[in-house]
């Protein structure tokens, strides 16, 4: 019995959300639905901690590997396993959903059961994406994440939800078709879907370029990189709170993960060829996203544009091809998940009270909601990478990593951080300080216990990772070194 659990820990973690969905089918009462989902997600957190404890950071190869033949005719397997890179993203994927459930506790009033099922479905699918060792499995579940997101946006979203949902689906589909093209291209040449074997195959000169491009675009749209980013502000701002959190917190990271898992190890030469373009696109994205955020009048949209800026840091780090850059990028993905997830949660709490996302409708919140403002300030400063919070470590590592390549990038990216400080603090000034601008803003209640419980774990995580990032960096060090060594120096 023990071995059934211990040997298949990863499969249990993947199965947990789906088991939760099955359990949800049998409960009807509102509170029961909420508690069932919460328990299911919390069990997964416990399992993730167990996984982390069992994980050996000294090994650079995959651990907890499980393989089962699935479609032998095509050589498709159910194959999962974790290395240091997946481990961090899995921790993030398990950590956020319980908070999403808590955050939606009262704000979702219609079709609650379906909403909870969708949260679990997204979580389950993303667990597979981050652990899959089989390209087909990866692609399939990559697609699956899109569907629940679409329904979350169009069924529970804000006023512009239909258009936002469509845009999201259109972009995602385009991205995933390119991804499909890339993955099929890989397997047609290599004759396998096994990601490790794919990396060892030598591809023909001509196809390398096109397959790389297809994969790259697929991931770049998901991340999103600069010219493909316009779906993100719409989707993020129209989605319900939990949807925004999952979208910004975890879904975007599939793009960055794809770069590290597919693009870099499979096509090291192509990665080097593309790197200058990608690096320039990244810094432009950082500045552009920050600049756009400065212009926003809508709280969620502001946070969404800040995500574009932060994702620029991620690609900047990944394509600097050294330990500092790549580890910084992965850490940045995790910490962006924490801070931006938290920003959406806390903005959602405000939205629950007034049903307005306009910055101009608030002001003077410090008077009525000191706890809210304290938490908002913490995440706002963490979001632009104030030192001693988690984002700083990631950004600093990325900057050091990219400084080996070209110092111009460091200078420009620093400009992005200043922009970050500008839009976040300006937002804070307009929302929290001064006098309330509307009657509604004068009557607000401060955060209650449940709402504090929703954001407190994130607040603690942001500070702890900021002053003691050692364990996270250690966990991925060997795996990243392996990837970086494969890349060589070009």
């Amino acid at each position: 019995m023990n071995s059934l659990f211990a040997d298949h820990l990863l499969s249990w973690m993947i199965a947990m959300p789906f088991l939760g969905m099955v359990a949800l089918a049998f409960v009807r009462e509102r509170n029961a639905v909420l508690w069932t989902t919460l328990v299911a997600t919390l069990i997964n957190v416990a399992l993730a901690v167990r996984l982390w404890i069992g994980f050996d950071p000294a090994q650079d190869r995959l651990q907890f590997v499980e393989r089962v033949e699935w479609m032998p005719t095509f050589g498709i397997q159910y194959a999962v396993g974790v290395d240091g890179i997946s481990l961090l993203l899995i921790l993030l994927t398990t950590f956020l959903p319980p908070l999403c459930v808590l955050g939606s506790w009262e704000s979702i009033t219609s079709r609650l059961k379906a909403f909870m099922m969708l949260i679990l479905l997204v979580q389950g699918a993303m667990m597979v994406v981050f652990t899959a060792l089989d390209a087909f499995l990866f692609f399939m579940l990559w697609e699956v994440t899109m569907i629940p997101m679409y329904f979350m946006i169009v069924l529970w979203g804000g006023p512009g939800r239909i258009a936002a949902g469509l845009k999201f689906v259109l972009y995602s589909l385009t991205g995933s078709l390119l991804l499909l093209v890339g993955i099929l291209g890989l397997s047609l040449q290599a004759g396998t879907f096994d990601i490790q074997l794919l990396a060892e195959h030598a591809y023909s000169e001509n196809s390398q370029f096109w397959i790389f491009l297809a994969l790259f675009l697929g991931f770049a749209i998901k991340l999103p990189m600069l010219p493909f980013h316009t779906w993100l502000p719409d989707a993020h701002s129209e989605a319900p709170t939990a949807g925004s959190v999952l979208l910004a917190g975890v879904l975007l990271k599939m793009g960055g993960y794809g770069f590290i898992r597919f693009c870099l190890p499979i096509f090291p030469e192509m990665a080097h060829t593309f790197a200058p373009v990608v690096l320039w696109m990244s810094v432009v994205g950082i500045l552009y996203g920050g600049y756009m955020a400065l212009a926003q009048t809508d709280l969620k949209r502001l946070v969404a544009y800040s995500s574009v800026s932060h994702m620029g840091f991620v690609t900047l780090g990944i394509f600097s091809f050294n330990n500092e850059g790549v580890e910084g990028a992965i850490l940045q993905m995790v910490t962006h998940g924490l801070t931006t997830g938290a920003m959406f949660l806390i903005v959602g709490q405000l939205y629950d009270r007034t049903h307005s996302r306009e910055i101009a409708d608030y002001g003077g919140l410090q008077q009525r909601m000191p706890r809210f403002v304290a938490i908002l300030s913490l995440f706002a400063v963490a979001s632009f990478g104030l030192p001693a919070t988690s984002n700083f470590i990631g950004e600093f590592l990325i900057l050091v990593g990219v400084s080996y390549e070209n110092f111009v990038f460091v200078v420009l990216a620093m400009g992005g951080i200043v922009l970050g400080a500008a839009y976040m603090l300006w937002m804070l000034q307009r929302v929290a300080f001064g006098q309330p601008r509307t009657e509604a803003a004068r009557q607000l209640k401060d955060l209650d216990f449940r709402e504090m419980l929703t954001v407190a774990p994130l607040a603690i995580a942001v500070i702890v990772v900021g002053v003691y990032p050692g364990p996270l960096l250690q966990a991925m060090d060997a795996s990243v070194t392996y990837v970086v060594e494969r890349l060589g120096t070009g």
Partner: protein
Amino acid sequence: MSIYTLIPLLPLAAAVTLALFGERLHGKGHRLVIPAVTVSFFVSVAAFVEVYTNGPIEVSLYRLLDVGELVVDVGFYIDQLTVLLLFLVTGVSTIVQFYASRYMIGDRRHSRFFAVTALFTGAMTVLVMSSNLLLTFIFWEVMGICSYLLISHYSDRPAAGRAATKVFLVNSVADVGLGIGVILTFLTFGTLDIPEILARAQAGGDFSGYAITILTLCLFSGAVGKSAQMPAHVWLPLAMEAPTPVSALIHAATMVNAGPFLLVRLSPVIVLSQTAMTVIAVIGATTALFAAVVSLTQTDIKRTLAYSTISQLGFMTLLCGVGAFVAAIFHLIAHGFFKAFLFLSTGNALAATERRIDHPEHDQPRAMGGLFAGAFVLSVIPPLVIFSGPYRDLWLSQGFSAANVALWIVGLGTVFFTAMYLFKSITEVFSHGPPGIGSSASSVAPRFYSARHVAAVLIPSAIAVGLLLVIWRWFADFLSPAVGGAPSQSTAGFSAWVLVPLAVAVVGWVVAYTRHNRPHGREVSSWKKRLYVFFLNKGYFDEIYDVFLVRPTIGAAHWMWQKIDRGVIDRLVVSLGTVSIGVARRLGSVDIAVDRRVVSVGTGSVSAARFLGRFIDTAGISKTVDQFGRGIDASGRAARRYEPRTLQHNLLVVVLWLVAALGFFYWIAG
């Protein structure tokens, strides 16, 4: 775990406790913070004794980062420089906390105030103790956010919120330079460990002069921000929005002192670049002179004090720029203690004069004369201090050259104006009450100018100067090892040079006195007026920044969002979709067939799901599925309303893509 870890740990722990349990400890925050800061003061004294007897102490705590070539250890390096600053920081903080415990009684954000001031003190102690440049940078920024939180303390006032944002942003622009400087230091020296960097810089080696110059200027840019040097000086007067004890903290103990400290800490690196040294000296000198003149024209005593601090900081920077690092620190510490006293007594005096206006029966200006005189003496001493022993270094540091003479003249000019504005502001406030309120009798001679008061001013100042010269001799011996590698740390004794600045100060004083007693309403020439208005408006720096930097940036951001992001990028993608749809339409019959197929697949799956639902759980699942179906239906209908036939067309786009993809495979495989 060394005992010296307690120095930052106690204030930080107090800050965290208050942040977490502030609501329960409301009104009692000082009971937590005062003991914490006091104990850390005593531990600082212990550290001072230990360093005095045994030399520098190194404490290592834990490894923050170990990635690739980058290794960052969190630890403390406590040498002569550190203990002197610790003495100042914890000492002044303790006094300020005692003062604040009275000042803040009844404040609505009592706990928040004490939590942040404790964090402020803690951050400054880590900054001066840090053994790693990254750690220095981290707490450099933490101080920045502390100042932000304190300036926005009275956040109900819109001005406070605006000031807080502006202060932080000015600092963060300057800190970009510091951040770049930190990374450049790592690239140049291969480490961020401060003792290691200093050792490598002193050992010399083949550093390119160009790189060192850039690096030093980047690091200096951070100092320009934190120490309010031109052109980043605009933030310090804005910081006055904070409660008065905070001003004392910012001006005397924390924050602004970080700039000169950083320059002195890294002095072996800085002296490698003559160009950078010159830039530092010029910026320091300009700031010193400009701010002194501006403070002469200000009518608000707190603003006068702010510009006076800027001017004094300019002095310290100037001293660093000419290589007189020991003198800079001496000035820093003297200035710190005196400025703290001045701020706290100003707060008291202002409160007292306000009371006096409200309740004329409590009019006892004579009884307060002692306090005024004390404030006056202490405020005139800092310029005297610099011009006694230390000033010789300025004179001798880099040989005799025209540039040095120029700096010397600037320095004396600053002394002159400093003496003038201090006299002016203090007599105005203390002998006539605050300007605007009952100050119509401004031509009346200052009341405390009796023989008794002159004696009260002169005797202590003479004693103080003598005492300071003795202290200076000891001080230079003590601090020299910490700035080893810096040129010409000659031990200065008493010399005739002391008399020059003293004389200049006295002249400034006399000029101010005669001007003060001059009858008003006299004709003033127009260029003088213009000059006065220019300096009264602080050189228009705030307005220039607003008109040429802030507004265009935000305006351009709005424009770009509307025109580029929405108008070009988004439209491009949408039109790409439209084009695909157009192509799809051409396919005609395929269109309809695929449309039907897709719809039937959809219907099929829904009915299959219904069937499954009935099979497994009629009540539960089917209801969900029904809801789903209805939801999808509704959204579909809504979508159709929103944009006719969009969904079908989207699916067609997808199919087109698929066809293209299949063609692609044939090509690759073949």
